[in-house]
């Protein structure tokens, strides 16, 4: 929990910390995918493979959320038949996967990013924003660098 607490602190500092944004990847349409290109600003902070692995897993999770499977189809039909009242009592498949994504990000923060002084912010907090460009600016103290993936992830580093 101390790690969580430090993550909370880092989140609060994230507003003043440097951020790197990762752009969305539209090559396959409007599905929510992120570019796996490794930002140069993070070269000194994290292993490239690890970063790409994180992004790839997240992309897979989002693909699953937006998948046109039988589950979403059944959900849609059921909702239609009940005049959409079913959404009042049931969580959609998308929301369930978003919860998994949050958990995964938390996990990644605890295990990989926080020890390196970086912080991944859950994209949904930023509204799954699309074309946030990469930006890295230094805070006043000049010691934090952050990573924002498509507005999702704010990876802020502390004392990095």
């Amino acid at each position, binding site marked *: 929990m101390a790690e969580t607490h430090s993550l909370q602190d880092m989140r609060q500092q994230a507003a003043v910390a440097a951020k790197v944004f990762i752009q969305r990847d539209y*090559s396959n349409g409007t599905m929510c995918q992120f570019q796996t290109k490794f930002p140069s600003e993070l070269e000194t902070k994290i292993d490239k493979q690890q970063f790409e692995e994180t992004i790839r897993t997240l992309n897979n999770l989002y693909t699953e959320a937006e998948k046109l499977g039988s589950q979403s*189809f059944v959900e849609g039909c059921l909702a239609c038949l009940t005049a959409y009242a079913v959404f009042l009592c049931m969580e959609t498949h998308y929301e369930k996967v978003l919860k998994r994504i949050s958990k995964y990000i938390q996990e990644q923060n605890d295990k990989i990013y926080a020890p390196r002084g970086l912080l991944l912010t859950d994209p949904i907090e930023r509204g799954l924003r699309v074309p946030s460009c990469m930006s890295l600016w230094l805070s006043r103290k000049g010691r934090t660098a952050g990573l924002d993936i498509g507005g999702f992830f704010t990876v802020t580093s502390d004392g990095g």
Partner: protein
Amino acid sequence: MKNCEYQQIDPRALSASPLSAQNPAEKKVQRPRRKWEAFPGKNRFFCDGRLILARQNGVLPLTLGLIVVTSGLFFAFDCPFLVQHLTVCIPMIGGVLFLFVVASLLRTSFTDPGILPRATADEAADIERQIDTSGSSTYRPPPRTKEILINQQVVKLKYCFTCKMFRPPRTSHCSLCDNCVERFDHHCPWVGNCVGKRNYRYFYSFIISLSFLTSFIFGCVITHITLRSQAGKGIVQAIQESPASVVELVICFFSIWSILGLSGFHTYLVASNLTTNEDIKGSWSGKRGAEESGNPYTYSNIITNCCVTLCGPMPPSLIDRRGFLPPDEAIPAAAASEMELPPFTPKSDANMCTQSTKDVLERMLHSSDFHGLCPSGNPKTSPLVQEVSSAPATAEPYLSSGCSRQLARQAVVDPCPLLSPVAFSKSNRRDSLHSINPAFRLASPSPTLSRSALVLGDGPDIGFIPQH
């Protein structure tokens, strides 16, 4: 330090309100505010942010009224006769259809259509930095587009000046709601909301079920009158006995054409995975020229297209209406709410400057040493901030006129046009939500402007595009 600065320029502290007694060091507002209260778009919220509607909700009451009145007349006047002479299923079917129509309509109207939250200060600054590579001293916004490949087809992404981001594919900015909406179809005045990604299926089921309901009522009323006239002494007497049926007939007759037409049109759109916006603009039709520009989003299969549009996964609302504003944003958000209270100020560049850089304007009004930078000062620059705290309480309308006066008074006109193209042709009051905004907005236009803004004070670099 940032929070203290916000406190110093807190309009509630400046105005003679009871809240001005707040301890400047205290960071919390009196009650935690929800994000919907500081929402920048032109929307109305109900049930503490659970329901969202466009501010210009058009003729939604009329739509509801027509449906309820027509159905009410049907159940009251036609159903008893038809139950007696035909079957009890008629009101049952009618009832089910009616409930479905009303549920779909309310769902369409009160669901977030897929509004994209506006770019935060840091994101917008970064985008500006990436775009503004020319470094010229005069800032004239080029048509900002970005080309990407979707399914091997080139698609242009446009930059939205209001929302400060490149619009995702199929996203469009609705000027009535002042929001970028994903998979924007159209703004429907009948439902009082935009129709976009998240509520298109509800809209479609609304018009389909309304077609059925209208046709059903129309058919039943015709049957009713026919049966009466056969049983009685002719059609005139039948009408006299049941005048309500005529009312229903008229309403149904006139609405059935448009509704059936609309249903057919939208069925075509659904089957080809198009939006009304794209269809009207002819984005993917062949009239672009020799190049094949088909719809890159279609799955080339009608069933799949229908499933995607209507039964696809339901993305969550991205605007987090019911979340709480963080404490350091709550105060400028309170400033935003303060600005919400006056009646709508006409959209003008002067007002945009005012609303979004209210604190700077206060300094302007009371500082003779303006540096000719109109609203471009960094609100967080220390010397100016101190002036703000001594500024008397000023009402917003005063400021809006004050800004106009300032703009007129100041010989330096250049910075203001520099600002007006930047984003705020549509938005005014929402910018106070991100008090940081003026900084990055101003940093973008020109290096000279940024530098002079920096000269004004040595506030934090937050929001400023690094001068590298």
